[in-house]
């Protein structure tokens, strides 16, 4: 079922939680609402679910205006960050809850309930825990049960509020891969909220990047990562190096150094360039051609990539990631002077307010 979010606004007292937000979510997609805490993403999710009401705007589910429908009539599945399982019920009864509270004429028979719950527990691979109570489960297991419970009523839309937020790093990674697989199996339109950019990039079909109650960019993971529409998106997704300067003749002038940015770039007095750590070529200091000089402060060589911290001439730190092999071929060590050439640089008008801290 598709979701259309139309001009949603929400205030909490003087605080603008959401300001005229419009998003279209096509049927069957897995979409991430990504943003820092306080950006309004959870509020938006709760408004879609009907757990919160908007001050203005409408929510359309499959084209129908659902704005005034109660949460119980919206047919959405909601998964909470802290699971919100029913503590006094077994895992089986938790999953069966949504079926048991149906009005009598729609309620499946006891046999049918048993069959459906068993199937769902198998789907989340926890059939063997059916008789346990939530307090006997690990965090990851609880969240999978919460998901099975939400799916039991066959929702048209699945909404997940920071579903992996309370889990430790390893379980988190496993579970998000599993969620992606599950989504590929059942194809229910899903929206999940996260502040973890890695999670959003890895799991979702599309990412909605939000900041301060508004939408910054909507796009596929590689679109938002490789072609950020705003400085905020560029700095929020992945680490990034900033260069402040002016653009002239297709170059970004940073102090006395010039970095080529392509002729298409409009000349401007105040601009900021973004370069990701892995988008640098590192050359010896005496290599011909123009580059940005830097002094290696620290090399962290773990895994295939080496993280190199450099000091720029203007005294700022620079983060660069290069292959460890390259590092050893160049024979670089801490204290060496090098020349840096960005392969890719994104330039935005300098507009400090829009930058993420």
């Amino acid at each position, binding site marked *: 079922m598709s979701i259309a979010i139309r001009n949603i606004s929400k205030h909490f007292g003087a605080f603008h939680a959401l300001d005229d937000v419009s998003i279209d979510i096509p049927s069957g997609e897995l979409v991430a609402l990504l943003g820092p805490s306080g950006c309004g993403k959870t509020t938006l999710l709760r408004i879609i*679910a009907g*757990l919160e009401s908007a001050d203005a705007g409408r929510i359309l589910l499959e084209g129908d205006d659902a704005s005034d429908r*109660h*949460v*119980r009539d919206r047919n*959405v*599945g*909601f998964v*909470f960050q*802290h699971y*919100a*399982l*029913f*503590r*006094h*019920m077994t895992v089986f009864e938790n999953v069966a*809850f*949504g079926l*048991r*509270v*149906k009005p009598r004429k729609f309620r499946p028979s006891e046999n049918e309930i048993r069959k459906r719950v068993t199937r769902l527990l198998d789907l989340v691979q926890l059939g063997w825990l059916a008789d346990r*109570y939530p*307090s*006997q489960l690990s965090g990851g297991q609880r969240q999978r049960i*919460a998901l099975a*419970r*939400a799916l*039991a*009523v066959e929702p048209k839309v699945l909404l997940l509020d920071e579903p992996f937020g309370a889990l430790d790093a390893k379980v988190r990674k496993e579970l998000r891969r599993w969620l992606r697989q599950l989504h590929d199996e059942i194809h229910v339109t899903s929206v999940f909220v996260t502040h973890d950019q890695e999670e959003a990039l890895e799991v979702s079909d599309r990412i909605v990047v939000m900041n301060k109650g508004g939408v910054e960019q909507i796009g596929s993971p590689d679109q938002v990562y490789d072609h950020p529409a705003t400085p905020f998106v560029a700095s929020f997704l992945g680490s990034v190096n900033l260069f402040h300067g002016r653009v002239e003749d297709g170059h970004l002038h940073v102090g006395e150094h010039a970095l080529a940015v392509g002729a298409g770039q409009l000349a401007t007095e105040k601009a900021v360039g973004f370069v990701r750590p892995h988008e640098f070529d590192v050359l010896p200091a005496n290599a011909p051609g123009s580059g940005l000089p830097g002094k290696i402060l620290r090399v962290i060589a773990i895994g295939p990539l080496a993280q190199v911290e450099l000091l720029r001439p203007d005294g700022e730190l620079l983060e660069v990631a290069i292959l460890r092999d390259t590092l050893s071929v160049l024979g670089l060590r801490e204290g060496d002077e090098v020349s840096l050439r960005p392969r890719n640089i994104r330039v935005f008008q300098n507009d400090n307010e829009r930058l993420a801290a």
Partner: protein
Amino acid sequence: MAIRKRFSPLPGFGLSLGYTIFYLSVIVLIPLSAVGAKTIGMGWEAFWAAASNPRVVASYELSFGASLLAAAINVVFGLIFAWVLVRYRFPGKGLVDALVDLPFALPTAVAGIALATIYAENGPIGSLLKPHGIEVAYNPNGVLLALVFIGLPFVVRTVQPVLADLEKEVEEAAAGLGASRWQTFVKVILPHVTPALLTGFAMAFARAVGEYGSVIFIAGNVPMVSEITPLMIITKLEQYDYAGATAVASVMLIFSFILLLVINALQGWMQNRYSKGA
């Protein structure tokens, strides 16, 4: 190999347990066993005569019946009180919250006199009820009223924290799964607070059984009709019938003890059912 002395990381086990037993003995067990000793000393026939006197039996019925009923009423209204105090914000909430404890603090005689004055035939509320054929003061209704009054805070104060502990999200989850408000209440909220309600019930009941001061002023103390057991004990004491008084007291103690034991067991069983391993 020598047996090594084991150290527990929790300090003061020996000292605190010793103190607990000493304290329990001095404050609770020794006075209670004195009751037992006095009772045993009087012999079976005298005991039976004192304990099964029709007037005394009528007082058992009233005391235990009214106490159970009062505790049950308090469970219902205490839950509503706790619900309001936990869930809603309204002007004067702090005041209401403080007023709940008043029955704890008020000298019971004061409460009894106040209740009797208000609910008497010519009192402000009693005079309103009288035309409808409802008489509260100086009959068993008065006993019930006084016991409800003194028991309320027990239920409110035991249920309140447990209710506050229930996340709003759990109710949202139930609503999201299609449960009506009533279904959410019956299937989610009530099971969550039931152990606390039982504790509150047990405490309100125990307090009510032993209550004296607030009841005697409003009960009227009509033999066979509105005499409570503690009053019977006092009456016997005033007649220097110490053995008779302890006989009645021990019957009351045994009843109360059994009832509290049952409630405790029930509660333990419920709690066990869903917090295993927690």
